[in-house]
């Protein structure tokens, strides 16, 4: 399912836009529907979980010195080819596999969803640009969902979570999100 721009936003199953619900929650102007509707409540829960996670991780102390294995694995991670880099700004880059792993992690924290594959495509940055900030990207995410999860709502929530994570943890504007629900799983009773 392709979702793009702000003009073609897939609403939650109840018809509300997840972005509006988040805005209202932050401004403290939730209406009666948004307080009680299960879709809106779930959209807000996603938001809170991401916020808590981001704050907690950012506040954690530094890790102890790495082992030999960690050093070698880190070196392999750091050996990036030019096509594996996302442009973050003048003289600044971000490893694409790393960014993809971070977005998969964000989806994994959502209730009833597991991320499978993620692909980030960045528009070509013209050479020698003095342009400030990162060029926009397009995200393709493949997920598996739990039975009973409302798929229309889920895609709206995933989209909102990814755009927010792109903004808050990567610093890359996400212009579009393709979500493929590839599989469903049933929770053992």
């Amino acid at each position, binding site marked *: 399912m392709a979702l793009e721009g702000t003009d073609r936003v897939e609403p939650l199953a109840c018809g509300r836009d997840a972005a509006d619900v988040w805005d209202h929650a932050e401004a403290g102007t939730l209406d009666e529907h948004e307080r009680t509707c299960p879709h809106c409540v779930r959209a807000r829960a996603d938001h809170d979980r991401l916020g808590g*996670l981001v704050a907690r991780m950012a506040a954690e102390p530094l890790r102890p010195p790495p082992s030999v294995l960690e050093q070698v694995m880190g070196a392999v991670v750091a050996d*990036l080819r030019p096509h594996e880099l996302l442009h973050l700004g003048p003289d600044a880059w971000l490893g694409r596999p790393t960014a993809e792993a971070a977005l998969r992690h964000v989806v994994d924290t959502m209730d009833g969803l597991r991320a499978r594959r993620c692909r980030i495509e960045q528009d070509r940055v013209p050479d020698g640009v003095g342009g400030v900030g990162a060029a926009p990207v397009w995200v393709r995410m493949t997920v598996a969902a739990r039975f009973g999860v409302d798929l229309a709502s889920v895609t709206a929530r995933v989209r909102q979570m990814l755009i927010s994570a792109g903004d808050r943890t990567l610093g890359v504007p996400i212009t579009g999100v393709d979500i493929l629900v590839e599989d469903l799983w049933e929770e053992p009773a």
Partner: protein
Amino acid sequence: MTGPTTVTVSDLAVARVAARRARAVPGVAVLMGDVTQTLLGLAADWLPRDPVPEELRLHGLVASVQDGRAEIRVTVGVRFGVQCAELAEQVRREVAEEVARVCGLPARVRVTVADIVLPG
């Protein structure tokens, strides 16, 4: 040079100054060397009498001084939750300022965020 004394700052000295500053930026979890740097660094830890040139042990940072300008490349790992673009910009700015202050050299700093340390 017109004066009787010249001072030249080596690549290694610039790299040390830059690495120290880059590590001190909040949100930077680790500087990440590439495969060559890491293996040589490990070899230096294990073999006696330090057969590895010192500059290769400056993990995750390469500096060169040419024509009175420093070129610095630094590769960092950050913790999840830190905004990568802002952090990269902060590392660029702080390292360039530090090299200019300590070594008296204008510096161009290129930053790559190669890893985001995820929770769990």
